[in-house]
């Protein structure tokens, strides 16, 4: 009895972490905002909707072009550095979009170093020339395209490698040239993967707050944060958040449907396509393109922020923020991964409740941080009316943050573990059971060791996401509990980039090793899967 209760604990935790969504919906539907929502609808709603939709459209197009294009090059052509680019192109995920926004806006604005250098060189004055500043909607589209393309890249790369390598070889033998193979065979087969990646990127774009706020694009998230903080209208904020969640759930549905279609295209028996040898010039052009994207997405912003940080010195509160961020992110990563493992393990053992929780957690993944945080506030508000002493809620500050992270990123951590487990056939569980393993010992003796790469990947992904997460942390952090993301936002919103640079840079430096590890683990797995060594009959993939 106790064992069963313990086994279902992770599923309960997962479900509990989703209650803020229910609280958000109830608050939005039943709360009284004194006409604030109507006023919002009359004034800024159309603008917010237009900006959000245009941003999502532009960013989706951008990530699809960059992600699918780079994946095609890496999967089909032999060029200098190809093996290295194969996984390094995932690293821009270590830099959150707001870090790129801080760097590029400052770099390209009239008072920034590029325009200053241009004026010094030509003697022109401001207004004498046109210069593409990274600001507003076009700037935001560029930023999101650069920092979110890895979502499309990763899925498109698996699709190009995993589906019909021989088909593309056949197309070449039938006279298709490189570009025609891409348009006629490669892209149509990888289209579901590209669509799935683009939907994920669109969800991230809609969830973002820091970058759009900094670049002056009025999206739903900006509206939510302003309604909550500046206007003091939590119900209006909740209503906007519900709209945003519904849009994100629709995107999630698109992503899941696209993945389902992609699986039908996948050809398990197919080997990756043979790499095409290019002329030296073309090969270097390929390397140059990969390097250009990597430079724009990671090297330029990081180097620029580094130069500013070195000039300005570390900002006040940086060390404390680093320690807090690490403590918070490590704690959250461990909790999220353990809960995810519990749910994945119970699902594998056939628990219907765990399976249902797993499905519902996807809704959490689609929930922007601002919406999750508002939901938690509403839940806390409802609970606090029942408590005689509210100091316990104040003390629970960091726990509320972890709850928001569980709601938002629990699915990502759980998904990594579940994916690792699903690579091993369920007959292993049955074998263990016939060899004397009880249901409980199966978890420790079979599921845990089989899931270990997934546990590590899940924990690293959760760690990176928590370090980067801005709106939920801004809303829910306890008083005087600034993390790196909060500190960077605080300085950036006051236009003090010199001070914002060091926490922003610290985020990249903290996340980069974790992303390198994730990229390396993913590469190891794909190398093992496509290893040339003949797979012995009956061998179970490692």
């Amino acid at each position, binding site marked *: 009895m106790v064992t069963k209760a313990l086994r279902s604990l992770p599923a309960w935790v997962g479900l509990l972490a989703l209650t803020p969504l229910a609280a958000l919906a109830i608050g939005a539907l039943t709360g009284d905002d004194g006409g604030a929502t109507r006023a919002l609808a009359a004034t800024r709603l159309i603008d917010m909707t237009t900006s959000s939709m245009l941003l999502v459209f532009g960013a989706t197009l951008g990530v699809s072009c960059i992600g699918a294009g780079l994946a095609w090059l890496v999967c089909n052509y032999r060029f200098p550095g190809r093996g290295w680019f194969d996984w390094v192109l995932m690293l821009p995920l270590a830099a959150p979009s707001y870090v790129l926004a801080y760097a590029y806006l400052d770099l390209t604005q009239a008072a920034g170093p590029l325009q200053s250098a241009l004026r010094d060189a030509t003697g022109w004055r401001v207004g004498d020339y046109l210069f593409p500043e990274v600001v507003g909607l076009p700037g935001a589209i560029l930023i999101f395209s650069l920092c979110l393309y890895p979502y499309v890249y990763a899925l498109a790369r698996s699709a190009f490698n995993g589906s019909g390598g021989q088909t593309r070889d056949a197309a070449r033998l039938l006279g298709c040239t490189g570009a025609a193979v891409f348009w006629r065979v490669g892209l149509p087969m990888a289209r579901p993967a590209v669509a799935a990646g683009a939907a994920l990127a669109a969800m991230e774009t809609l969830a973002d707050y820091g970058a759009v706020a900094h670049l002056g694009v009025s999206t739903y998230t900006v509206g939510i944060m302003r309604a909550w903080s500046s206007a003091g209208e939590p119900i209006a904020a909740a209503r906007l958040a519900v709209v945003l969640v519904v849009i994100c759930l629709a995107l999630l549905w698109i992503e899941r449907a696209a993945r389902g279609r992609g699986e039908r295209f996948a050809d398990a028996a197919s080997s990756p396509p043979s790499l095409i040898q290019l002329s030296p010039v073309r090969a270097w052009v390929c390397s140059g393109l990969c390097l250009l994207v990597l430079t724009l997405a990671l090297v330029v912003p990081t180097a620029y922020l580094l130069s500013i940080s070195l000039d300005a010195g570390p900002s006040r509160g940086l060390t404390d923020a680093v320690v807090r961020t690490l403590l918070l992110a490590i704690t959250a990563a461990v909790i999220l991964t353990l809960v995810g493992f519990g749910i994945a393990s119970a699902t594998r053992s056939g628990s219907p409740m765990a399976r249902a929780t797993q499905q519902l957690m996807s809704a959490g993944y689609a929930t922007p941080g601002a919406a999750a945080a508002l939901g938690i506030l509403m839940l806390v508000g409802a609970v606090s009316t029942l408590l005689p002493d509210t100091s316990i809620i104040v003390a629970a500050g960091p726990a509320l943050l972890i709850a928001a992270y569980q709601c938002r990123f629990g699915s990502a951590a759980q998904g990594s573990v579940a994916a690792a487990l699903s690579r091993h056939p369920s007959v292993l569980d049955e074998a263990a059971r016939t060899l004397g393993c009880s249901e409980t010992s199966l978890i420790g003796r079979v599921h845990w060791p089989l899931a270990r790469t997934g546990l590590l990947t899940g924990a690293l992904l959760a760690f990176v996401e928590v370090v980067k997460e801005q709106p939920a942390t801004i809303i829910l952090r306890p008083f005087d509990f600034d993390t790196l993301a909060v500190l960077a936002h605080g300085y950036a919103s006051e236009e003090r980039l010199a001070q914002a640079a060091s926490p922003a840079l610290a985020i990249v430096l903290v996340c980069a090793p974790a992303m390198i590890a994730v990229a390396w683990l993913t590469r190891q797995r794909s190398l093992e899967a496509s290893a040339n060594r003949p797979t012995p009959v009956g*061998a179970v993939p490692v």
Partner: protein
Amino acid sequence: MTAVLTAMGVSREFAGRRVVDNVSVSLSAGRVTALLGQSGCGKSTLLRMLAGLEPVDGGEIRNERDVLSSPGQTVSPDKRNVGLVFQSFALFSHLTARDNVAFGLAHEKREQRNRIAQQLLADAGLADRASAYPFQLSGGEQQRVAIARALARKPSAVLLDEPFSSLDAGLRRQTRQRALAQLRQASTAVLLVTHDADEALSEADDIAVMKSGQVIDAGPPERVYATPATLESAQLTGDVNQLVGAVSGARVLTALGELPAVSDGYALVRPEALLVRAASSPGAPATVVDRRQLAGALEITVELSSPGRPPEQSALRVRCPLNSPWLSGQTVSISHLNATDRQ
């Protein structure tokens, strides 16, 4: 002979479809029982029921002392003392061969565990492969590790779920003989689930033939092969000719003489039970219509010269020595090795 694991009238349904229907089978120590049937006939479900991985909807499964499965009650697989070897072997990829074999010995001290595992690997001829991981082992080696692992807990019965089917033909026979010898030596009751009639006939002490969830024939291999209970049983255990004729009691009067009738009212004759001789010899006159070279034999198809009979009832396949002179179009005489002469 004591039965160590017995299924009595067990049934199992999935979505209203009865995939195992009132099946009884009994496993005895030191004997190999083959469960023969085509894919989807329910044999793997029966095996999973015996292992405790599936509940039973009807009937019961018991060992020498206790009921292990009955409707609404299933002793879990870890408490049944039944070993199972999977078609894919299901070796734990994160453990070495030795640790795989020692997996089921968690109650033993580490040294003892390793000693037993090493001994079992040595018995399987894998003493020098103990530290190898599954991906470093060949298919045959993996199969031997899987059997050693199943034997480590000294199970009263070992269930083999087509464990040889994924091996190359050359390796299969050798591995199978070695594995079954090892199991017999350990006095374990063995259930070998297979769709390969040669495997069942050559290796088993008893055969149960399954079709559509039911056991349609059971007995020693010689009996099941020589006098199959039904046409389906005959077809599942090898090539067979179907002869019609006037039924007289338990026998059928055919063109080749009087032969035992199966329940459906035909006589069934294996190709190798027929004798082809020159047309002048005693027997039924026939014409050779096809000639095919097999591994180690020649198969000819003859058409009995029985006016008025449709071709499907007069064509017979006959297996003869490789150097037989019969050619297409030639007239021959056909007789049955065990038939009683025509009255």
